[in-house]
């Protein structure tokens, strides 16, 4: 059986468009990426960009979340969360770097405030034009993270906000030193930066990559996501239109929620391809000179752990997408609840996929460690995403968010 039959989710109505997009990405991944991985060993970054153009421009995933009336597919509404999740699982199955770039793109559009006319009709138009371009546009998101000892910063739920935004003369000015995007900082054409205003309130500032006053560091060497090279950015009072700042309550929470879902999908996709690699390995290698690995009870129990982690993650992420679809309706699902659930499920999903790959590698031995088999790449990529989503302090921030919501903690 294939992964579709094995990793099931509760039924939902999917329209023909969503089915066909996911199928298209699956076919592209199988034909253009997975079948050619050994060929891509040399010169991968350049090839990645070329293939990303196929995915983003030819297939059109770059404008998937652009509103329909502005030239896109219109998948920017909460009801489309499940469809975006499916697409990102397929993209992550090919290469997590594709998925991360798309996840950041979709998170910007799915962020509720940008779609509201009163909050930024102009911004949504600029974003739509940017991502409807015939050129590949890499977005980069800067979230709050660790602060520096001895310095007091504005906080977003205890995470340090290292960028500032101020208004003057009808414009806004963004300032921040050595900010760390989630990914793609080196080549990003658009930055979305969590900033604090004069009252230490968090908001989102959208800054064009070519804006004057942005200085990027050299490429940062990281363990994974090597195709979307990261860099630190320093902004020296970079001027942006005031309507490119979103300071409405819940905007940052919304961004976190979407990233929790979408990056969870990317990691799950990588995990599912790892599952396929492991399936192949355990169905073709023997242990003790006779039995297939998968027929040895101890190995089978490890395989069961892998399957359990991935299948339950799949269920949880689709549940989260369902909660997001409900969030538009009146009821108890307010932004804080969604933020909390997305944090819990996002964190658990990353950890579960990581556990699945870590355990599966135990059975592949040295082959799992060799670049030839590609298992190790998924392992490095997912670990990178997982650590990024921690922001700082491992799971502590999410645990504090959870405790605040469920137990009304006010000091943590």
């Amino acid at each position, binding site marked *: 059986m294939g992964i579709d039959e094995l990793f099931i989710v509760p039924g939902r109505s999917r329209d023909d468009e969503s089915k066909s997009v996911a199928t298209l990405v699956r076919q592209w991944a199988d034909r253009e990426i997975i079948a050619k991985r050994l060929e891509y*060993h040399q010169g991968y970054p350049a090839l990645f960009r070329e293939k990303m153009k196929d995915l983003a421009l030819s297939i059109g995933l770059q404008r998937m979340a652009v509103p329909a009336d502005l030239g896109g597919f219109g998948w920017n509404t909460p009801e489309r969360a499940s469809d975006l999740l499916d697409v990102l699982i397929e993209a992550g199955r090919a290469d997590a770097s594709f998925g991360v770039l798309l996840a950041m793109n979709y998170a910007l559009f799915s962020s509720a405030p940008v779609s509201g006319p009163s909050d930024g009709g102009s911004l949504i138009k600029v974003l739509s034009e940017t991502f409807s371009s015939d050129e590949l546009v890499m977005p980069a998101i800067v*979230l709050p*993270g*660790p*602060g*520096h*000892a001895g*310095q*007091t*910063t504005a*906080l977003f739920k*205890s*995470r*340090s906000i290292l960028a500032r935004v101020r208004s003057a003369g009808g414009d806004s000015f963004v300032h921040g030193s050595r900010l*760390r995007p*989630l990914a793609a900082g080196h080549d990003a054409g658009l930055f979305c930066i969590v900033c604090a205003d004069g009252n230490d309130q968090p908001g989102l500032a959208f800054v064009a990559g070519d804006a004057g006053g942005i200085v990027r560091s050299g490429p*940062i*060497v*990281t*363990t*994974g996501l090597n195709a979307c090279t990261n860099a630190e950015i320093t902004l020296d009072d970079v001027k942006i239109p005031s309507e490119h700042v979103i300071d409405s309550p819940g905007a940052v929470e919304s961004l976190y929620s979407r990233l929790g879902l979408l990056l969870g999908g990317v990691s799950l996709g990588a995990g599912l391809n790892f599952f396929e690699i492991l399936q192949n390995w355990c169905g073709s*290698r*023997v*242990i*003790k*000179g006779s039995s297939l690995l998968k027929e040895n009870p*101890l*190995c089978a129990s*490890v395989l069961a752990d892998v399957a359990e982690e991935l299948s339950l993650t799949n269920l949880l992420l689709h549940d989260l997408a369902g909660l997001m679809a409900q969030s538009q309706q009146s009821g108890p699902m307010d932004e804080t609840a969604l933020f909390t659930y997305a944090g819990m499920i996002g964190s658990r999903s990353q950890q579960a996929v*990581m556990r699945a790959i*870590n355990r599966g*590698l*135990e*059975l*592949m*031995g*040295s082959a799992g*460690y*060799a*670049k*030839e088999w590609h298992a*190790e790449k998924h*392992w*490095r990529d997912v*670990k*990178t995403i*997982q*650590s*990024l989503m*921690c*922001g*700082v*302090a*491992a*799971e*502590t*921030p999410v*645990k*504090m968010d959870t405790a605040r919501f469920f137990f009304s903690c006010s000091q*943590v």
Partner: protein
Amino acid sequence: MKHFDDFSRPLEYISPLDKHFRAVLRKYIEQEVMPYRRKYDEDWKEHKLIEPAFDKLMGELGLQKSLFPQKYGGWGLASSDYIFRMAYMLCEELGRADTGMAVALAVTFWPLLVILVEPYVNERLLDEFAPMFCTSKKAVFAANAMTEPQGGSDIENMGLLKGRTIHTTARLDGDEWVINGHKLWPTNSGGVSKLFGVPCTTRPGSTDINDFAFIYVPADAKGVTQGGPYEKAGMAADKNGDIWFDNVRVPSWYRAHGPGRDAEAFYQLISFGQVASVAFMTGAMANLYERLYEFVSTRTFGNRPLKENDAVAGIIGRIAGDIDICRILGHEAAMMGDRRNKPYGLPLISEEVVGKIRNIKDFVSDRAVENFGKAMDILGCYGADREWDIEKHWRDVKIVQLWMGGKQLCQMESARYFFNCETI
């Protein structure tokens, strides 16, 4: 607690040479490895940076001759009663900087231990091979060519399989062994080694340990072909590749000891390898502590240093506790090895020693893999950065968990000893 040296180790276990050698080695590591190690990953194929460091460590400093008797110019450690503990110290110190370097050095000793450690000493072979290591100022490597394509780590599962799945054959033809087979993944292959120790069978499919042979093969022998190094997730200083033996002929006396004793001497290597593995990981975790200490002291959550947040302190406290416990266990494993010839000790080939040392390796592997992963998460958006060194160790220690039969073989050896399992 301010320094990684303060992590516990039973002081009565420390060898008399520990303090001196550790100081010399650490100085070398600080000067020759630490400043360059972040560039080792890109040097995996050429070893332009790594090779000079090895030359200084193994050749100039002389570690490659340390096991050999003094009559060859060596330091005589193999005949001491603290070889395991000295090996532990060496592997731990190197592991702190780079586990790839540590394993490349340790594995050079590995095949030689088969003929160096009482009661399995072969003077004639030592006369033959010792000069190669004791007279060179350049690094000279050796390798244990064990793993085969069809069986993975079955070869390390001697307790159950007794060499039954080995496909590499040795046939006696006059006064020469003729060897045929294909090995893959040995540390120090990929064109590095000058000498291979080759486990093979004189009767394919046999479960009689008398048919197991351990034969030395010079890398330049006719019929030996080596592939290039594999590209891996980490461990760049350790090259691995394929080796083919095509009607390779070596003198008959290149067999280590002969029927029965070859298997026993080879089986001793399992415990040496496991103790070294533990040392690589506790060394790496000592460096984890150093780097994590800096991060949690200088970066904040809620505008307070990370280490001053109770929830974070809970995590880093557990990590430190694990390092402390693992180091104690590592020294216990080393001492188990060094008790082998004592009246109160057990031979290295006993099920008890094999099972208990494998248990410690399995436990420490799990703690290392988890703690490096957790430390990366504490660093959050910086966790994947090469600059913080933790991600490199995270990549490196994973293969330590996987090799030599990995977690599952450790569990089986433990079950065999503690529950008298007979068929698994």
